[in-house]
């Protein structure tokens, strides 16, 4: 009774506290100073048609590097925690595990799911690559493209739950793209204005795939890295769940 009363009280307090936030809402008439700068000069400056990408990859490039690092740390943590349990499997409790594994043997995918996955996998995969290669032209970029690629792989896992996945190629792709991302950043430091500055490559023609300096290169590397890391996470979780 008292607990419920406190919950209602807390909800009312939150509502009263948030009231000015909801009541005073109105469309912003003008942008803040730094946003105005990005909007007016961004396209001329970097030659990227998608302004969001030029902010994410260049103006706030260091933040994106930080995000990628956080994702890497998360992947390493998940893999470490879930893989640490594995050595027990062939050990003392191997028999018990095997028994219960047979009890919970998962259904394999239906014919529909298998055919659909085989048909859709390359298309979704290609769409993911399209998203990050065209990150400077159309909405989306490395993160979104990487997750789309992961979801394509996930579809394969759903269709065939026994599918084995080689982690070596994932690790190579992930390590290569991470190192290359930093290397591209350093190239900007050497040949342009600063770290992660994409203008050491020619700006090219506005709106073309090969334009906006190194932005497509950076976003493609991020896409490969995110795709490899998330695929690794999903595969680790899938194997530990079985």
């Amino acid at each position, binding site marked *: 009774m008292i607990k419920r009363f406190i919950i209602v009280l807390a909800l009312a307090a939150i509502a009263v506290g948030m009231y000015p936030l909801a009541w005073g809402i109105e469309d912003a008439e003008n942008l803040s100073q730094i946003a105005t700068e990005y909007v007016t000069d961004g396209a001329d400056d970097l030659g990227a048609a*998608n302004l*969001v*990408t030029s902010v994410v990859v260049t103006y706030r490039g260091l933040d994106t590097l930080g995000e990628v690092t956080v994702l890497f740390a998360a992947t390493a943590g998940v893999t470490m925690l879930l893989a640490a349990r594995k050595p*027990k499997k062939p*050990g*003392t*409790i191997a028999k*018990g595990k095997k*028994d*219960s594994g047979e*009890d*919970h043997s998962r259904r394999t995918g239906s014919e529909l799911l298998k055919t659909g996955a085989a048909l859709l996998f390359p298309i979704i995969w290609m769409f993911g690559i399209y*998203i990050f290669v065209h990150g400077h032209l159309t*909405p*989306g*970029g490395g*993160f*979104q493209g990487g*997750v*789309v690629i*992961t*979801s394509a792989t*996930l579809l394969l896992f759903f269709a065939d739950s026994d599918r084995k996945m080689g982690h070596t190629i994932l690790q190579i792709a992930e390590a290569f793209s991470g190192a290359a991302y930093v290397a591209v950043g350093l190239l900007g430091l050497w040949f342009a204005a600063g770290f992660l500055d994409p203008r050491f490559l020619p700006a090219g023609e506005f709106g073309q795939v090969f334009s906006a300096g190194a932005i497509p290169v950076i976003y493609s590397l991020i896409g490969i890295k995110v795709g490899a890391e*998330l695929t690794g*996470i*999903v595969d680790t*979780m*899938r194997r*530990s*769940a079985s």
Partner: protein
Amino acid sequence: MSITILVVIGILMLGGGIAALYIKDTVSAIIAAGAVSLLASIIYLLVGAPDVAMTEAAIGSALTTVVFLFAWSRIKDASSKKEKKETDADQNSGQEVGE
């Protein structure tokens, strides 16, 4: 017109959130939580943030849901294993030291 759609989607999201809290079946609750994310991504698209909408649709509604489902299946496996172990604990008591 546009504001009406936003309000309708907002109410649906609210319903989905409440459903996720109160549904007894965990898998259905996870799906309801994923649906809230999907509706949020539609809102982002309508208010002109396609980049955020893509992220929300891909991570919020797809990947998070799948991670929750994996976690749930693992919890279920672990708890049923524990029950099984308790029933035949006298046969192989050495197992409990193992875990």
